[in-house]
């Protein structure tokens, strides 16, 4: 091995370790706090272990917040995934005027601060007498669409519509083509995009607070309230761990599923799943 290669390897390894520490380190105190009964200065570790934080969180209504967040995540995924897929399909294969401007508009929720959108949307929705639950679903969908559109556009870029034409000539009705060819072939990208949309709904704070008008007490709202009010670090830590666990579990499940799929898809000419999952780190 040449000295340059050796130095390169050391630098690469060093970067990997530093990044891992950078990501994992903030989680360590949270995990410790979640399992601490008592932890006072100057002790490096909790003096007493226990699940009092989790118990306090449950007593504080964590379960219902959990359900609310889950519903919100699923709702956002259910709305933003098909919307993003359709937008991506139109932008890739349709003959659309002002394609660049429309792409930019669809990306707007990413680079416009959320409260700007929320304040404007809130006024409009109130004036139009739209129920807050419907309004919340609509605004969350809009904020998730940039992600779903982006994922689906890269999937469609490598999608050969000729395969759909073959299916048509073999006797398949357009609906059969959609259900038996397009959706199964794009399942990897659709899953990735649904996952991203779920995360938008699951972890949202500003939109849920303002548009939901306090009716929807989700995990992030519960965490924020606990963090700013009680001073009970164990409670805040338990809520935070609870907030992080479902997405992580979902990610792991998707990863396993995607690995299982890739056993028979490895050589197939459908790079979209492989191209998408690295985006969310689900398919290394």
């Amino acid at each position, binding site marked *: 091995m040449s000295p340059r290669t050796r130095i390169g390897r050391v630098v690469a390894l060093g970067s990997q370790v530093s990044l891992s520490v950078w990501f994992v380190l903030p989680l360590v105190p949270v995990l410790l706090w979640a399992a601490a009964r008592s932890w006072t200065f100057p002790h490096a570790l909790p003096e007493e272990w226990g699940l009092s934080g989790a118990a306090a969180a449950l007593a504080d209504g964590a379960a219902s917040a959990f359900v609310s967040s889950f519903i919100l995540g699923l709702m956002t995924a259910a709305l933003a995934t098909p919307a993003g897929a359709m937008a991506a399909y139109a932008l890739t294969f349709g003959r659309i005027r002002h394609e660049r401007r429309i792409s930019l508009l669809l990306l707007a929720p990413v680079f416009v601060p959320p409260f700007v959108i929320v304040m404007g949307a809130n006024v409009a929705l109130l004036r139009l007498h739209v129920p807050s639950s419907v309004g919340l679903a609509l605004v969350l969908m809009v904020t998730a669409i940039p992600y779903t559109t982006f994922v689906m556009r890269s999937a469609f870029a490598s999608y050969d519509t000729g395969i759909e034409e073959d299916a048509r*000539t073999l006797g*398949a009705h357009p609906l059969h083509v959609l259900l038996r060819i397009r959706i199964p072939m794009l399942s990897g990208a659709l899953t990735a995009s649904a996952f991203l949309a779920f995360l938008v709904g699951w972890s949202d704070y500003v939109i849920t607070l303002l548009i939901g008008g306090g009716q929807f007490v989700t995990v992030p709202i519960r965490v924020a309230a606990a963090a700013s009010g009680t001073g009970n670090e164990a409670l805040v830590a338990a809520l935070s761990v609870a907030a992080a666990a479902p997405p992580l579990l979902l990610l792991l499940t998707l990863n396993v599923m995607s690995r299982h799929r890739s056993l028979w898809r490895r050589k197939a000419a459908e790079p979209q799943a492989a191209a998408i999952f690295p985006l969310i780190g689900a398919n290394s």
Partner: protein
Amino acid sequence: MTASLHLTDVSRTHEGAPTPVFTGLELHVASGAAIAILGPSGSGKTTILRLIAGLDTPDTGDIRINGASVLARPPEQRGIAMLAQRPRLFPHMSVLDNVAFGPLMTGAPRREARRQAEQYLDLVQLPGLARRRPSTLSGGQQQRVALARALAASPAVLLLDEPFSALDPSLRADMHQLLLELRALLQPTIVLVTHDHQEAVLLADTIAVLIDGQLQQQGTARQLYEQPASITVSRFLGCLNEIPGKLVSGCHVSALGHFPVPQAEHMPDGPATLVIRQEAVRLVDPTSTAATVIGWVERMVSLGARSLVEVATTTGPLFAEAPPGQIFGSGDMVGMVFPTEQCVLLPDPVMCRGVRGSALLAGRRSNPGSRSRHLAPESTWAER
């Protein structure tokens, strides 16, 4: 299942294109017949298949399958199946389910569709691969599965769009043989699009030559090679010898002199080009009385077993194919024999002498299916 196919006065201009792909196209295929549409890239061959399949719509004209117009029918209701250059198998389905797709879509229960699929996999000699995923098959196997998938849909008309051009020569020969066997067994009407002369000759009953959106000639391979309708067709089919001149009382008069052409007796006098395929020209001793033309060997290019000999004559370069063992050196004097029955007189006006030479060379370069192979860079000069 089989059906007749008729394209009448079909025109198509792609959106935004300045010129039509073709206008007034007429194509008639009898039930159970196989026609090859032969033409260079960009001549509109694939567009014809897409129009028949219903994947594209003609601007004018009618397409009838078994006598009924299919223009209003979507692709899935036309009774056709298409096999393209790439197999495009459904990657998320097993080989068996790929083949069963057609029967399943036409209403067969899954079990029955799979049973039929197994039969078609047997037909394409891939019985053991039913449970495999397409991605685990070789290119040749994938194309066989694609053929089985197309046939399993029981198409009345089978459309083949350069289906074997991506395969290596030995696999291609296997696929040709397989297609011939399946054709004898199932007798679908076949429309094959190709730029490969040999493939067209081998697989089709008749050949339609499509160049620049014009159907130049339609006939059997023998008719096309022995009686090309125009200089364009003759050139496309790889004929290298064109001798411009005029016809005077059944005699072709050119820089080479007077050459009697019996089959031209009924043609009116006027400008005419004498065309003879290089394969038909024999090379003899220059002193032989049989020699039609005498010239000097310019060069000799190996075609494998045979060689292409370029001979400089008073009318410019002429070409002949020499059999194995007949070897000439550059500058040798040779006699060329033009068998009268192989000569064709075409009324097309040909450009003046010098320009024709360069046009011929340009044709060789731009037409990979025919003349280019004679002057391929890897060809070696034969030395005595």
